[in-house]
C-alpha cells in the first residue's frame, strides 16, 4: 500500500488552467488575456535588451568566483535592490537600519517575511496573529501566509465592484476594527488584480490609522516601474511609509520589470527601528533561509546588481521599463477609445484609470464565460485582463468581442 494513497488531486491553479485551455484551443484568432507576464506587440515574451547585454558581460567575466552565494544573497544585489525601493538617498538607509534578504522571486520574499513574522512578531510563534490580504488579491498570498503557519488569513475591504474603484471607507473601517498588531499585506503599486491604487491622500489616511493602531506593514512590490513607467513615482507609497517611521517588510520582485521570470529574482527589504534591531532580525532570517533553500541562485541577482550599479546600464534599464509601461498605456488608451467608438454600453474610463498590467474590466462571470466560449478570448473569471495580451493585431477583435458580450449577455 502506498503511503501516498490518500493524496487527493489538488485543484488546478486557475491562471495555469486558463493557459492550458488557451493552448488547446484551435480557433485561429484566439487571444490570451490571462497570462501574468509582459508580451510585446507581436505577442511574444521580451528579453530586455539591457539584460541580454549584461548576461553576455557576466558569461565572459573571468574574475567571477563560482562559489555558493552567502545565505542572505549577493550583497551588491541586496543593497542596490533596496535602494530601488527606498530611494538612493533614503534616510533609513543612511541610518543603517535597512537590510535585505535575496529570495527566490517575490514569492520567496513573501515566504521569508511570513516565516519570520510567524516566529517572532507579536510574541513568539503567535500563529493567531491575523494576516490581512486585500479583497481581491493575488491568489497566492493566502497560500504563502497559511503555509507559513498563520491560522487566520482574512480579507480587508478593497475593491468596490459597484463603483469600480477603491472602497476606501471599507478599507479604513477594517484598519480601525482589526485586532491590534494585525499584519496587512499592501500592494505597493499596480494592484493585482484590480489595477486600482490608493491616491497619495488616501495612502496618508491609511498610514495614519496603521501607525495609530500599531499594525504591521508588509508591502508586496512586484510591479515597480510598470505602474507609471517611472520607478520613483511607483515607489511613492513605500517611501512615504518609511518617512512616517514605520518598521516594515517589502517583498520585491524583479520578474516583471527585468523580464527575469525564470531566474527567480526577489528581495525582502527590511526596515527596522535601528541598526541593532536590524542585525538581530537578519541573524534570524539567515536561519530561516538555511532551512528553505540555503543559498539563493546567483544568475538573476548578478544581472540585476550589475545593471543597477552601473549608471549607463541603469539608464538603459529604465528606458526598457518605460517601453513596457508605455505599451501598456497605449493599449489601455486604444481599448477604451474603441469601446467608446463602438458605443459599448457602460462607462469605460476605468480602463485608462486603472494602473499596471491588469485591468478589472467589470465583466461578470456569465460575460466572461461567453468571451471564452464564444469568442475564444481567455480572461480570468473575475473579469481581470492582462493588458499585455492586447496587440495592434487583436485589439479590434477584443473590443468588438467585449461590445458583443456586453450587448448580448447580462
Amino acid at each position, binding site marked *: 500500500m502506498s*503511503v*501516498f*494513497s490518500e*493524496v*487527493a*488531486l*489538488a485543484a*488546478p*491553479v486557475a491562471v495555469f488552467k486558463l493557459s492550458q485551455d488557451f493552448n488547446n484551443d484551435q480557433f485561429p484568432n484566439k487571444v490570451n488575456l490571462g497570462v501574468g507576464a509582459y508580451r510585446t506587440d507581436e505577442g511574444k*515574451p*521580451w*528579453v530586455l535588451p539591457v*539584460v541580454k547585454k549584461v548576461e553576455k558581460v557576466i*558569461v*565572459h567575466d573571468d574574475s567571477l*568566483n*563560482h562559489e*555558493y*552565494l552567502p545565505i542572505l544573497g549577493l550583497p551588491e544585489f541586496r543593497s542596490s535592490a533596496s535602494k530601488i525601493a527606498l530611494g538612493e538617498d533614503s*534616510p533609513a538607509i*543612511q*541610518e543603517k537600519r535597512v537590510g535585505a534578504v535575496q529570495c*527566490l*522571486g*517575490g*514569492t*520567496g520574499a513573501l*515566504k521569508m517575511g511570513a*516565516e519570520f513574522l510567524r516566529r517572532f*512578531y507579536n510574541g513568539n510563534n503567535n500563529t493567531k496573529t491575523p494576516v490581512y490580504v486585500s479583497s481581491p488579491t493575488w491568489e*497566492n498570498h493566502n*497560500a504563502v501566509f497559511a*503555509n507559513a503557519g498563520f491560522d487566520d488569513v482574512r480579507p480587508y475591504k478593497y475593491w468596490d465592484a459597484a463603483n469600480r474603484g477603491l472602497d476606501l471607507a471599507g478599507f479604513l473601517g477594517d484598519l480601525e476594527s482589526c485586532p491590534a498588531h494585525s499584519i496587512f499585506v499592501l500592494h505597493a503599486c499596480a494592484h493585482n488584480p484590480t489595477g486600482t491604487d490608493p491616491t497619495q491622500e488616501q495612502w496618508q489616511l491609511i498610514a495614519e490609522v496603521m*501607525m495609530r493602531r500599531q499594525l504591521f506593514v508588509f508591502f508586496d512590490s512586484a510591479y515597480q516601474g510598470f505602474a507609471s513607467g517611472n520607478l520613483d513615482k511607483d515607489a511613492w507609497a513605500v517611501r512615504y511609509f518609511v*518617512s*512616517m*517611521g514605520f*518598521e516594515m517588510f517589502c517583498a520585491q520582485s524583479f520578474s516583471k520589470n527585468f523580464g527575469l*521570470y*525564470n*531566474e*527567480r529574482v526577489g528581495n525582502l527589504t527590511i526596515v*527596522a*527601528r535601528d541598526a541593532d*534591531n*536590524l*542585525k538581530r*532580525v537578519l*541573524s*534570524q532570517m539567515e*536561519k530561516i533561509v*538555511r*532551512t*528553505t*533553500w540555503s*543559498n*539563493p*541562485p*546567483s*544568475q538573476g541577482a548578478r544581472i540585476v546588481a550589475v545593471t543597477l550599479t552601473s549608471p549607463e546600464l541603469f539608464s538603459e534599464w529604465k528606458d526598457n521599463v518605460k517601453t513596457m509601461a508605455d505599451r501598456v498605456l497605449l493599449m489601455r488608451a486604444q481599448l477604451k477609445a474603441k469601446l467608446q467608438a463602438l458605443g459599448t454600453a457602460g462607462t469605460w474610463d476605468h480602463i485608462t484609470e486603472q494602473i499596471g498590467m491588469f485591468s478589472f474590466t467589470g465583466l461578470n462571470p456569465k460575460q466572461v464565460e461567453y468571451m471564452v466560449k464564444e469568442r475564444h478570448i481567455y480572461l480570468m473569471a473575475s473579469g481581470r485582463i492582462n493588458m499585455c495580451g492586447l496587440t495592434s493585431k487583436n485589439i479590434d477583435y477584443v473590443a468588438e468581442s467585449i461590445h458583443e458580450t456586453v450587448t448580448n449577455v447580462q
Partner: protein
Amino acid sequence: MKKMKRPDSKLNETEVKQNGDAGGHLSVFTNVHTAAGSPEKRLLSAFKKDTNPGKAYLAGREYYSEDGKTFELRLVRRIKQQLSADPTTRPEYPSPLGLTEFTRRATEVALGKSSRAIVEERVLGVQTPGFTAAVRLGAELLRNWYDHCAAWCGPVYLSSPCDDSLAGIFQAAGIQDIREYYYWDDQQRGVCLDKLLEDLEKAPERSVVVLSASAHYPTGADLSHNQWAVITELIMRRRLFPFLLLPPQALCYGNVERAAWPVHYCASQGMELLCAQSFSHCFGLYGEAVGHLLCVLKQNSLLLSVQSQAATIVKSLWAQPSAGGANIVATVLSNPAHVVEWKEEVKHIVERCMLIRELLRERLRLLGAPGCWDRLTQQSGLYCNTGLNEDQVEFLSQRRHVYLLPSGCLNVSAINGRNLDYIAESIHRALTTSL
C-alpha cells in the same frame, strides 16, 4: 545619531527623544534575539579573522582546484556562452515543477534509464532551487500527506552524525520529532551496522529514515552493497520510509551510476522513496541552486495527485525554481558528446581528490603520525574523516591555523601542493602533543 525628519510632524517629542523613536513605540523586533550562528558560520568567521599567513580552511563545501579557487568546468562555460547568445530563450515563468528535460535527466541519473519505476510511470521529479530546497520540499510533502488523518509529525531518523542543517529543515516544515540512528563509530572508524540496525529495529512503523546514498556528510563513510541489502530488508519489514540523499559532493566519485546505486537498488526492491539530489559540485554550478526531488511511488495511479500536491506546496515556497543552472545540466545530460566531455572533466576532479588522499597518507606515515591512515584512501570523495577528536581539532585551528570541521572531517580539495606539508605536520602535532 541622525534624527529622522518626519513631514509635518506634530509631535515635538521626536526632536527630544534620543533615538528618533517615532510615535514612542518600541521596535516590533525588540524581543528578537540574535540567532546562534551555525558551527560552520562561527568557524568561517574565526578563519576570516585569523591573520596568520599560513592559515588553511579545510571545512568548505565547494571543490577547490589546485590554485585554491572554485572553478568552472570548461564545458559549462561554453554552454553558458552558447545559451546567452541563444535568441530563442523565452523569459517566462517555468512550471512549478521545473524544466521537464532537467527532471527527466535527473531522474535517469538517480534511477537509471531502464528503471521499471520510470517505465511504469510512477516516478515524480521536481526541480528545486538546490539540495536544501529538495529536502525541504520532501519534508513538506511528507508532513502534508504521509498521514491524511492528521498532520504527520515524525519521527524522522537522521544518522549520527549528519549535516547539522537537516534537523532544522524538517522542523521548519513542521515535523518536530527528530531522532538519531547510530551510524559512525569512533572506535571502528567506520559505520557500525549492528547498532544501526538495532536503532532502526526499534523505530515506530511509518518512521522516515534519512539515509545518505553516497558521500555521507560529514564522515565520508558509505554503506556497502551488502549493508544496503540488510538495511532495506529491515526498512521494508518494519514499514519505514526511506528518504535518500545524493548530496552535492556525491558525484565527486565521478561515477554517476556508482553514486546512485542505492537509489536504483531501493527502487528495484519495489520500495517507495524520496531522494534529494544536487548537481552543484559535479557541474561547478555552486551559485546556481540546481536541485531535484525524486519521488518513487508504488502505484502510477497516484502520480497525478502527488504531482499536483507537490506543485501546490511549491507555490507557497518559491513558486517556481530558477531556470539557469537546470538548463545547463539538461543541456549536458541530454547530449551524449557533452556527457563524455563532462565525465572527463569530473574524472580529473576525482583523481585529484584521490591523489591528495594518497599524498596525505604518505606524509603522515613518514612523519610517524600515530594511527592507521589506510582509511584515507579507502574512502573517496570530497570529505575524509581524520579521526581527530574535538580537542585536537581545536588545537589545529587555534595553534596551527588549520580549520577542520568539528567532527574531524576535512575537505581534501582544499589541500594543495603549497599547504600539504604544513597540514600533514599540523595533524601530526595535534596527535602527538599532549593536550
